[in-house]
């Protein structure tokens, strides 16, 4: 019996780790590009809502929340956000959009968000919403894993052990996130935004497709295939746009004249 509950804890730990790494990626992406305060507040708000739902509804929560609908909504949101960021990053890398100094970008973003009403009380709405959605969806999937693993073993007390496995995954993945914060801060801002755009587009495509019933070959591992395709294609787009940029055309013209 002990072996059974320990296996339940291990399975819950491993499966939850995959979901939490996905949530961590989104929170890190939101944090490094839109500010840690908004991203962490978004993630914490999602955790609080999840805890309230679990305390109020218990395991019945999984019957109440249509997980596929949530996947489509959150996935579509991240896909649109990701495509918007990726497009801007491609335009910057290809020289079609100016690579401003970080101070200028910050001042511009603050001014733009103030005009749009996006920043209220020091909270960046995009950063908050991205981290909140990613954490809420992955948190519900972790709850689903815990209940599925516990009901699969059908041993008394296995729900607690499965939950313990998920908590261990939360602590370890969270520690990895804290450790990654400092190195990420040293990455050039435009490269970081490129990576964030790639990550959000990848997860958005994966989650929205999953919710709509698309069958991903290889399950969760297919995220890496989507990411790889996006990276390669984005670099091709950067090269193609760079070769057609006005500056390049002018340089070619100058070269042919001399």
């Amino acid at each position: 019996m002990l072996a059974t509950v320990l296996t339940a804890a291990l399975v819950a730990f491993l499966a939850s780790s995959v979901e939490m790494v996905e949530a961590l990626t989104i929170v890190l992406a939101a944090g490094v590009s839109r500010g840690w305060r908004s991203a962490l507040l978004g993630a914490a708000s999602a955790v609080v809502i999840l805890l309230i739902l679990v305390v109020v509804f218990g395991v019945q929560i999984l019957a109440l929340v249509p997980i596929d609908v949530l996947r489509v909504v959150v996935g579509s949101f991240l896909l649109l956000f990701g495509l918007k960021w990726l497009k801007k990053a491609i335009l910057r890398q290809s020289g079609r959009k100016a690579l401003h100094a970080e101070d200028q970008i910050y001042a511009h973003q603050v001014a733009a968000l103030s005009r749009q009403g996006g920043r209220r009380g020091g909270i960046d709405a995009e950063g908050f919403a991205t981290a909140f959605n990613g954490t809420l969806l992955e948190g519900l999937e972790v709850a689903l894993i815990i209940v599925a693993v516990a009901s699969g073993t059908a041993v008394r007390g296995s729900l607690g052990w499965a939950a313990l496995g998920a908590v261990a995954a939360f602590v370890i993945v969270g520690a990895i996130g804290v450790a990654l914060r400092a190195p990420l801060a040293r990455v050039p801002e435009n490269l970081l935004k490129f990576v964030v755009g790639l990550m959000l587009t990848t997860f958005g495509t994966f989650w929205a497709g999953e919710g709509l019933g698309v069958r991903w070959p290889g399950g969760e591992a297919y995220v890496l295939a989507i990411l790889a395709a996006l990276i390669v294609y984005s670099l091709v787009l950067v090269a193609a746009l760079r070769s057609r940029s006005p500056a390049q055309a002018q340089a070619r013209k100058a070269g042919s004249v001399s």
Partner: protein
Amino acid sequence: MNALRWVYNFVVGDVYLLIGAGIVLVLGWLLHTALGPLDGVLVPLGVLAVLTVSLVRRPE
């Protein structure tokens, strides 16, 4: 109206991305049973196509 415009600018701000992603997701949903295992390949390809169209039609 201002609130709708704010939401639009906040989430995407590009009509090609909005309509393109919508078409890809709706087609993915409608055709996923007919396409069989191909849907896992065609949906990401559709996303790449949307990105390309937006970059070509509205490079700003």
